[in-house]
């Protein structure tokens, strides 16, 4: 078997990133953030106070401390108390708490959206008529502007009361987030379920395998490489949906409302307005990271095609 062993050594292996490569990626990430900060400060130092105006339209922003606070001021502001009231929590904590609330809501929206999306994808694969009947509506659903139906969802939710249980306002936000999240998942699932090679399907046919067996043994595993990017897109959509829905339904505890509220205080405290923006960015990164863990758990199904 030495010949076989040699062949195995030569055969492709799943790519495992070395430690050095991982460090390099992290360094590049940090460098990117520093480059953005440097560009910001450079423009602030060299640009005219009134920005750059071309034919009556301002194409580059004002460089005053009001419009563009120094990056270090933004960071320093995070460590100061949120308000001048005695005993106020530091700004970073206030933002982090709001971001966590939004993360939880986005998480619920993502889970619901994923379940609905996978369900629709399965339905469309198993039942061909459903694909022709449903797919146009699924695409159409995403053309409805979010701010148009967000108040509708809220007012419907407010009327729901089942045996003493009242529809909480955060659930309206989660429903709207799921409305955005389900779309990429449904499309990705359908595409993935339709992706198996003909040989694999014919093999299952030759085994006299049932539809369910084919689905479980071939179609679902083959769908994983299509499903994972869809889940990532779904997570990003859920986060955006949560932030926008918080604003348009008037939900007070999340990062969305904080973005609006702190922006209103920008004339007196310009650096503060940037804190929830950083919070929203962190929220998106954490959401993407959590979905990345799903990819790690399913890595067996991401092996390169063998042939």
């Amino acid at each position, binding site marked *: 078997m030495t010949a076989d062993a040699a*062949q195995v050594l030569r055969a492709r292996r*799943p790519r495992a990133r070395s430690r050095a490569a991982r460090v390099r990626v992290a360094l590049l990430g940090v460098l990117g953030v520093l480059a953005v900060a440097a560009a910001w400060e450079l423009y602030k130092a060299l640009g005219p106070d009134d920005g750059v105006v071309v034919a009556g339209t301002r194409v580059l922003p004002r460089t005053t401390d009001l419009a563009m606070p120094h990056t270090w001021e933004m960071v320093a502001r995070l460590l100061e108390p949120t308000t001048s009231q005695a005993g106020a929590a530091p700004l970073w904590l206030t933002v982090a708490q709001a971001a966590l609330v939004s993360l939880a809501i986005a998480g619920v929206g993502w889970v619901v959206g994923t379940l609905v999306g996978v369900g629709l994808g399965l339905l469309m694969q198993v039942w061909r008529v459903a694909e022709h009947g449903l797919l146009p509506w699924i695409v159409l659903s995403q053309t409805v502007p979010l701010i148009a139906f967000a108040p509708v969802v809220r007012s419907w939710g407010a009327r729901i009361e089942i045996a003493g249980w009242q529809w909480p306002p955060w659930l309206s936000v989660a429903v709207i987030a799921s409305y955005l999240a389900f779309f990429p998942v449904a499309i990705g699932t359908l595409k993935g379920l339709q992706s198996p090679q003909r040989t694999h399907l014919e093999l299952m*046919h*030759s085994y006299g395998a049932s539809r369910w067996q084919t689905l479980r043994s071939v179609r679902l595993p083959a769908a994983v490489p299509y499903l994972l990017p869809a889940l990532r897109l779904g997570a990003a959509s859920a986060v955006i949906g949560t932030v926008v829905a918080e604003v348009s339904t008037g939900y007070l505890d999340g990062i969305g409302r904080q973005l609006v509220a702190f922006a209103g205080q920008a004339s007196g405290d310009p650096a503060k307005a940037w804190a929830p923006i950083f919070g929203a960015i962190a929220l998106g990164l954490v959401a993407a990271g959590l979905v990345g863990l799903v990819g790690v758990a399913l890595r067996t199904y991401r092996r390169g095609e063998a042939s």
Partner: protein
Amino acid sequence: MSETINGDGVAVAANGVGKTFDTRSGEVQALTGVDLRVAAGEFVSLIGPSGCGKSTLMRLLADLDSPSEGTIEVFGKTPAQARRDQDYGIAFQQAGLLPWRTVAANIGLPLELHGTDRAARAARVAELAELVGLSDFADRYPDQLSGGMQQRVAIARSLAEQPRLLLMDEPFGALDEMTRERMQAELSRIVGESGAAVVFVTHSIPEAVFLSDRVVVMSPRPGRITGVVDIGIGRDVPRDEALRETTAFFAKVTEVREALHGTPVTASGREGR
């Protein structure tokens, strides 16, 4: 050779089989007037140029397509019934392994689908892995194997349920010549041990002669059988490198080549493929 249709002696019986495909440019006759008998335990190769319908014929036997005319019986049943009864095992040119399953899990797939219990499955998989010489690689994934090893996994999988008939569509077509010759010798041994009949699609003359009891020569436009060559190298003769050097082997290669070209091959035409 037995000619009875219902007896145990006949693995495959095709009578007047034709197949037409509807394509955009009109009807294409892929097969016409095919009569073929394969006895139980017999190794029959289908050989011919591209478009001669050899793969189509195999797909009809496997119930992956249905004939436009004529009848096919596999062990006296319709191909659909034979498929449901798992009377045949199948291997394609692409190994067709599921990339997310280990070697063992790929070999055991048909057993798993048909409800063989875990212990019996593990025992059978170990036996098959041993048979194709991959015992040390049972826990590997297909992308960690060479093409020849992947094809051996596919052959082991096709043998999992001890079928009486093996249908193989150019299983060694994607392998290099060295690996290919080794695989031919191994297949001959494995088939000898299993006692299964084989219908083997190939476009290599030496491969067909080396493996077969009979070689069925086919011709395109429309796809049909134009000749049958009895190889007559007994099963007791070991299929090894020595066989490839014998005069009898060369004579049969020439005979199949002549049947393929439809004319006796002269000395100048003997340079080979």
